[in-house]
């Protein structure tokens, strides 16, 4: 070293012309970490924030204390989880296809990340509220949100609960615990804290869950949320989905010199855990623990879900321009659907044949709803909502200037 300051510019392990390389990622053995007490403090969460909670081992067997913690999650519940993920994947597949056919303006898949939303949602109760990003449609799927509503919004037709106000993937459903997505990154993390504070003040018994991607942890409101959650200790779970890529920007640009995103939450005095996000059992176990802890009044908790964004950022993105081909196949934590399938087969509750059959059935079911919804109009065959809706709901009561503008438009 010459002593001359040099800037650091983080780079991903591989670019398009290189071989995928995840050798720098440390993958601890499944079952290595204990289940901490519900009132875990930040200072005592170091191993959970720097390590990784994993339940399924390489053979697909559930091992360790966290496996015992969810021993009551029987084969039926796990099969429901598998079906949730298969349904999520079928919806993504069909709607990506619809975008390619010009039937909708935009779509965004969550391929590879299905276990996180599906597993988390099944541990929530009615009245709990997620503040999702646009890649958490899996929360809606596992909440049994009607596909008709979900697809109606994607096509902005008469089935769209939002009457054409929002981009196709910016869902909103109060009844299904899914807060209106704005599309501004990070802004809703602090709103989840506010919502949870209201829950505590009104003694509703409900909790809130904030969601943010690894890239958006750089935003001001991520830090605002962690600080305010730490200060006021409301019933909120602060989820960080680390899928390694923020469009084309490698996660290292947002991590900086920190070891993990979970460790960053600890710096604010919030206990934090890091979890194998491609392991449905680990997701279910940690979600169950976090929900129980939060509802019991032990304050906020942060969870880094470690995963990989298999698909493009969106239909407007081409990842072959910035990351190695076949990187997803090289991802060391595998595929969440395949891993849960292997586990279920291992415990005698599932088979390859039944899996193939279930995939086909679910795809048929999704396609059937899709056809019904498409009959109500798509971008190819538009039957848009009335332009008069432009002026509806800007305010509770329409002020005079908006009424004049609506009249000027001819409605």
């Amino acid at each position: 070293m010459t002593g001359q300051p040099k800037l650091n510019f983080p780079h991903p392990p591989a670019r398009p012309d290189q071989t995928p390389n995840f050798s720098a990622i440390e993958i601890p053995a499944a079952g290595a970490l204990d289940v901490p007490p519900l009132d875990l403090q930040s200072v005592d969460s170091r191993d959970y924030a720097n390590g990784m909670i994993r339940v399924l081992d390489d053979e697909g067997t559930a091992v360790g204390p966290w496996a015992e913690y969810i021993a009551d999650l029987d084969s039926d519940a796990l099969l429901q989880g598998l079906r949730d993920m298969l349904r999520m994947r079928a919806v993504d597949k069909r709607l990506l296809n619809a975008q390619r056919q010009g039937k909708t303006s935009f779509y965004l898949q969550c391929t590879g990340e299905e276990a996180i939303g599906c597993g988390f949602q099944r541990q929530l109760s009615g009245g709990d509220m997620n503040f999702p990003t646009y890649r958490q449609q899996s929360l809606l799927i596992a909440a049994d949100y009607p596909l008709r509503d979900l697809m109606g919004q994607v096509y902005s037709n008469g089935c769209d609960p939002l009457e054409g106000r929002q981009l196709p993937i910016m869902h909103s459903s109060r009844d299904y615990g899914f807060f209106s997505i704005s599309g501004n990154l990070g802004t809703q993390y602090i709103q989840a804290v506010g919502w949870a504070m209201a829950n505590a003040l009104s003694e509703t018994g409900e909790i809130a869950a904030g969601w943010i991607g690894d890239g958006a942890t750089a935003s001001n409101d991520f830090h605002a949320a962690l600080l305010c959650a730490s200060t006021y200790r409301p019933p909120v779970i602060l989820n960080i989905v680390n899928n390694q890529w923020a469009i084309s920007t490698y996660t290292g640009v947002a991590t900086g010199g920190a070891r993990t995103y979970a460790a960053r939450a600890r710096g604010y005095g919030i206990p934090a855990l890091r979890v194998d996000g491609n392991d449905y059992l680990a997701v279910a176990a940690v979600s169950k623990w976090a929900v129980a802890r939060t509802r019991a009044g032990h304050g906020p908790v942060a969870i880094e879900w470690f995963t990989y964004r298999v698909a493009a950022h969106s239909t407007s993105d081409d990842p072959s321009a910035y990351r190695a081909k076949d990187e997803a196949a090289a991802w060391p934590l595998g595929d969440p659907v395949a891993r849960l399938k292997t586990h279920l087969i291992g415990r005698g509750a599932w088979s390859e044949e039944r899996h193939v059959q279930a995939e086909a059935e679910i795809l048929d079911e999704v396609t059937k709803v899709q056809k019904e919804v498409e009959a109500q109009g798509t971008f190819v065959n538009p039957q848009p909502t009335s332009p008069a809706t432009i002026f509806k709901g800007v305010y509770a009561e329409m002020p005079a200037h908006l009424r004049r503008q609506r009249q000027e438009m001819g409605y």
Partner: protein
Amino acid sequence: MTMIEALRDAMDVKLAQDPKVLIFGEDVGYFGGVFRCTAGLQAKHGEERVFDTPINESAIVGMAVGMAAQGMRPCVEVQFADYVYPAFDQITQEAARLRYRSNETFTCPLVVRMPTGGGIFGGQTHSQSPEALFTHVAGLKVVIPSTPYDAKGLLIAAIEDPDPVIFLEPKRLYNGPFHGDHAGKSTGWSQHPAGEVPEGHYSIDIGTAEVRRAGTDVTVLAYGTMVYVAEAAAERAGVDAEIIDLRSLLPLDLDTIRASVETTGRCVVVHEATRTSGFGGELIAEVQEACFWHLKSPLQRVTGWDAPYPHATEWDYFPGPDRVARALTKAMED
């Protein structure tokens, strides 16, 4: 009652009346705010209702958005309007649009209070008038009282409003009316009829202007501190001006404006904020569209200069009575 006491009284009334009302912001809890607007409220209503926050305006408004969506009625303080910019994203893209983008399944009834305007030698970070940044945003309401009576009635209305309200408090008027003579003797609100503030609950409809001085020569559109400066200017110019205190910039009471300009045929628009793309431009456009055939002379506009708010030369920057008087005289030509 001073404007500070009137604002405090409004919050006190609502805190007592509605358990969903919450007050928070920097220094507003134990201490009661740097301008003392919330003094005593925490002691009276408890720290679950009135509390201090970290110094992060985005956090203050962001929390309020989440709370409002979940049924609370947060009324938050941003210590100076000049500090609101970190919260701009939360106000303009979150609070303002939540009702619309969720098709009315989530709503955002919150109030963001902030002291605005100059006149206290506050320099460029304690003197700004950012109202036009908010009137440009669909989904917001923007209110600015000029008397203690209006301050209380409008703040109660803002807290009860189902939509987000930006509540601008002209800090030069906190302790008394200001007619633009900074070197002169100031009088407190106790000497002014609008310092009479009734006890208990009353509200003033957001979106209604008030004629402060009836007149026949020329209409003056003003708000906040400039209402009093306009009064002084009319006297100085010897013009029988009709001075309209807009009180609410969004929505705007176009009916009251139109009725006056149709009578006088002349109009001067006044504000403290910088000129270019200021709210005055909007007012002139509206008056021109609504009253063009009644106009007898070109519309006039008096504003702060298009420069950052200075410290030492504040009174050369501030659009004082002389400048307003010149505009009134000019409007009376032809």
